């Protein structure tokens, strides 16, 4: 560096040298983040008393001083982002997948959208013609509301306050039951709209009902012509009836989102957890190994036979870890008998979570398969961004 007043002459050679000079090429300069900072950046450490380094380092310039770029840009994101599908359940309604290389801020946005902002169809109005059961009208209506309906919400429109319920925004079911158990399979779809007649003055005109369908839904939605709309599951219990009890009602389903009421949420739940990482800090052998294996309630550890009757603990199933921290508690949480000389406790397991690896699970209620739900959720986030951009332009 120059001191004040001193003038340095910069020659052409110097300039060329400066052009080609990259401090990171210098052998004395360590490249990349030092390991302890890298650990803080990428892992949550689950210590005996509490987890530490839980927040992600979101500021892109955080490691400027060591010459490391901490930013997430589209190029490096595209390179690192990965999805691994782990399992799709037999009925196709539960999906587990790993999402690797994404920040919690965005993963959480997907989860929140899945829970609250994806539309589905759910019963909004229940017209009770007769209810002599012990289930009160309002309780019955609330139970009806929570019944998931297997109809693609994309086909329908929202019913706004001034709209008449028509074939594009309402699905009508009727229920007439006298038997002991009232199940959702007894709900019968009415493609022509409501059967219930509103009081009408003159008898000459067509009687008015609670909906104004211009034509049958079987005509307007060819996909429903041969397979009628039903609730997602036929065996959901709505009510139990005693002898002489009777329920007769009509239920109108409309489109809505989970933010308004949880009945419109398309998922039973959608959640993620960070990938657990279990690391043995040293060799855990013989008696210690057996204690460690016994301490873990999820059977994360296994014993490996090393020959000569010696055993060693290995980490066999780190994904099963629930981070109960039993393995990092003093003496694995066992009580040490007083009188017996206490050995000094050495922690030999490190529990961590990988900050950018999410095990995501979506449990659909049955209106749409979970993979479709996820793509729709991502699309909704895209739309939100687009809306902000449009508003700012």
């Amino acid at each position, binding site marked *: 560096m120059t001191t004040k007043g001193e003038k340095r002459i910069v020659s052409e050679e110097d*300039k060329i*040298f400066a052009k080609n000079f990259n401090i990171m090429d210098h052998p004395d300069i360590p490249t990349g983040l030092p390991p302890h900072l890298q650990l803080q950046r990428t892992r949550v450490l689950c210590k005996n008393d509490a987890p530490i380094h839980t927040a992600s380092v979101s500021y892109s310039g955080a490691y400027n001083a060591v010459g490391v770029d901490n930013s997430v840009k589209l190029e490096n994101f595209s390179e690192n982002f990965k999805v691994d599908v782990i399992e799709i359940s037999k009925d196709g309604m539960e999906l587990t997948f790993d999402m690797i290389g994404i920040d919690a*801020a965005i993963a*959480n946005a997907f989860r929140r959208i899945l829970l609250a902002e994806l539309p589905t169809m759910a019963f909004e109005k229940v017209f009770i013609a007769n209810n002599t059961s012990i289930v009160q009208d309002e309780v019955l209506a609330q139970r009806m509301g929570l019944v998931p309906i297997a109809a693609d919400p994309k086909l329908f429109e929202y019913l706004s306050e001034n709209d008449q319920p028509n074939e594009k925004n309402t699905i009508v079911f009727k229920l007439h039951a006298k038997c002991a158990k009232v199940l959702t399979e007894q709900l019968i779809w009415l493609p022509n709209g409501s059967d219930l007649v509103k009081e009408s003055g003159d008898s000459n005109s067509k009687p008015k009902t609670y909906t104004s369908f211009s034509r049958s839904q079987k005509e307007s939605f060819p996909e429903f012509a041969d397979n009628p709309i039903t609730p997602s599951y036929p065996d959901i219990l709505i009510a139990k009836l005693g002898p002489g009890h009777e329920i007769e009602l009509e239920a109108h389903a409309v489109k809505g989102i989970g933010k308004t009421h949880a009945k419109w949420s398309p998922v039973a739940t959608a959640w993620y957890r960070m990938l657990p990482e279990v690391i043995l800090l040293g060799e855990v052998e013989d008696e210690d190994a057996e204690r460690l294996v016994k301490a873990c309630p999820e059977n994360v550890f296994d014993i490996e036979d090393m020959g000569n009757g010696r055993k060693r603990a290995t980490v066999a199933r780190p994904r099963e870890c629930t981070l109960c921290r039993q393995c990092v508690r003093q003496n694995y949480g066992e009580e040490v008998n007083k009188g017996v000389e206490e050995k000094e406790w050495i922690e030999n397991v490190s529990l961590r979570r990988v900050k950018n690896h999410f095990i995501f699970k979506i449990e659909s209620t049955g209106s749409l398969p979970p993979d479709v739900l996820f793509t729709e959720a991502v699309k909704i986030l895209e739309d939100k961004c687009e809306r902000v951009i449009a508003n700012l332009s």
Partner: protein
Amino acid sequence: MEHGSFTNDSFASFTLAEEDHTLANAVRFMLNQELVNAVFDLDLVSVYVVTNHYYLQLYSPRVTFAGYSIPHPSLECVNVRVQTTGDPAREVLKDACQELMLMNRHVRSVFDKAVSEFKVEQARLAAEEEKKKKAEEEELKKQRDLLASMDIESD
């Protein structure tokens, strides 16, 4: 809606109506990633400037502050605050949204690919299982037939 200054557009607050943590937190994250493309005139960098300043110029953030708040739980809006190193805050926020949108597009394509690959693989495994089962059944049937024929012979 933008609340900013007439004279200096490098800082502003934006009110996003009908949004919540879902978008605001993601946008805040993306705003923190905003960097100036490291373009600088090397003629100006003299040989003896090889201190930390050099790196600072390499990855220089565009945003000095980005945060959001929800003014009241019963209000359906968020306030996003953006302060930049000189670029108009509005443009920086737009860029962040654009980047987030492109990222989402990428997530979607990767996810769709992974799911369809998984389904194909599952179908293949199921078919194999079916084949195996059939082969086993046939084997059993053969043996049974053989046994039956032996019975007849013994009669």
